[in-house]
């Protein structure tokens, strides 16, 4: 790791002041991605700004019937939250399936979505549940937030403050975890939101995407059987030592069916 200066501000305005005032500042939340990146010397920030002491970025609350989760809320907190379990229990299950217990005790919702790893779980939840990302400058619909592999709509000095989820109808999430890291080789979230069915796929492509054909089929018949015969084109999907593009395409259909079964159950 290259040397950097560490800061621990206690308010959002201090954070934004530091981010725009320093030459090459980097935010740290749970550090579960940033610290490994720094160790590999893939980044060389002049300053590292810790969000850990900024109370206004943390916590879970019910608002307008939906759910608002602060950026620095840890995966374990989402998994264990009574409010989440009551409003969107499947979101708690999804958080509980991220990595391992120690990663969940440090990693945060904001860190996960800002990193936008193509195999991360939360992007499927945000897009599938039609969530809205709140930043210090504006609000961004989830579908416009995730723009590409490890890329988001965030500007350089923009900070995610919270994510708002409307209360959905039935929700199911199924992932085929990488056996070592638990990242999603493919993960599919199926949800009824405002009377429409949404199907969001993570892990398969460079960035989370919706599967319109499946959404259409499930709108008229919300059952796994409705997906029989539907396939995803392997062209453009991810291929690595863990899975070929063709295998991932097949997994999308299998995980979508499992997600529907979970949602219907």
């Amino acid at each position, binding site marked *: 790791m290259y040397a950097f200066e560490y800061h*621990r501000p206690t308010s959002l305005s201090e954070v934004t002041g530091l981010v725009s005032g320093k030459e090459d500042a980097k935010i740290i939340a749970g*550090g579960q991605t940033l610290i*490994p990146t720094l160790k590999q010397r893939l980044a060389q920030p002049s300053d590292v700004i810790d969000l850990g002491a900024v109370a206004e970025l943390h916590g879970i609350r019910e608002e307008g019937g939906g759910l608002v989760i602060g950026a620095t809320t840890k995966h374990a907190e989402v998994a264990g939250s009574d409010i989440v379990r009551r409003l969107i229990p499947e979101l708690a299950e999804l958080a509980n399936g991220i*990595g*391992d*217990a120690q990663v969940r*005790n*440090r990693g945060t919702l904001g860190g996960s979505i800002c990193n936008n790893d193509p195999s991360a779980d939360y992007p499927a939840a945000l897009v599938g549940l039609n969530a809205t990302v709140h930043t210090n400058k504006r609000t961004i619909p989830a579908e416009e937030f995730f723009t590409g592999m490890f890329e988001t709509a965030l500007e350089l000095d923009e900070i995610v403050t919270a994510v708002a989820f409307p209360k959905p109808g039935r929700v199911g999430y199924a992932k085929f975890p990488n056996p*070592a890291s638990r990242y999603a080789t493919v993960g599919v979230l199926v949800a009824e939101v405002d009377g429409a069915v949404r199907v969001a796929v993570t892990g398969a492509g460079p960035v989370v995407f919706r599967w319109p054909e499946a959404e259409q089929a499930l709108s008229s018949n919300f059952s796994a059987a409705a997906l029989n015969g539907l396939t995803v084109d392997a062209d453009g999907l991810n291929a690595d030592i863990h899975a070929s593009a063709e295998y991932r395409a097949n997994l999308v259909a299998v995980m979508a069916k499992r997600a529907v079964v979970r949602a219907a159950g």
Partner: protein
Amino acid sequence: MTSVSLKVNGKSVTREVEGRTLLVQLLRDHLGLTGTHVGCDTSQCGACVVHVDGESIKSCTMLAVQANGLEVTTIEGLAAADGTLHPMQAAFREHHGLQCGYCTPGMVMSAVDLAKSHEHLDEKTVREGLEGNICRCTGYHNIVKAVLAGAEAMRSQPAQAAAE
């Protein structure tokens, strides 16, 4: 350099560290607590697991400065002052939950957190709960047995388990 003050195994300590100093480096190199191991240094193996404010975390993936003001417990802090092993440590010995011992400090720290955060542990919960801890020797079978027995003992010897 930044000053960091924290409690380690019940004792207050203050040290000057760099921003980039990892918590595991503070523990091992600055404080001489070499019970906490570094297996991978890439957040995968769990040999470095310690408790921060009672929760298990990977100390190779936390900055020392982030522990400022917090309470850290390492494997050295588990046994009673007279050397009596913590029930989880005793269970690992009793059930042959280790061979080379490299993964053991992290396994035990994860296991204690797991036992404390679940009212009931079964084999499946233990195997899932130890997902972040890798052992190259045992095949996990005896580790799982040890964790189940250790958790049971922690429930029946609450006073000693609380010494942690």
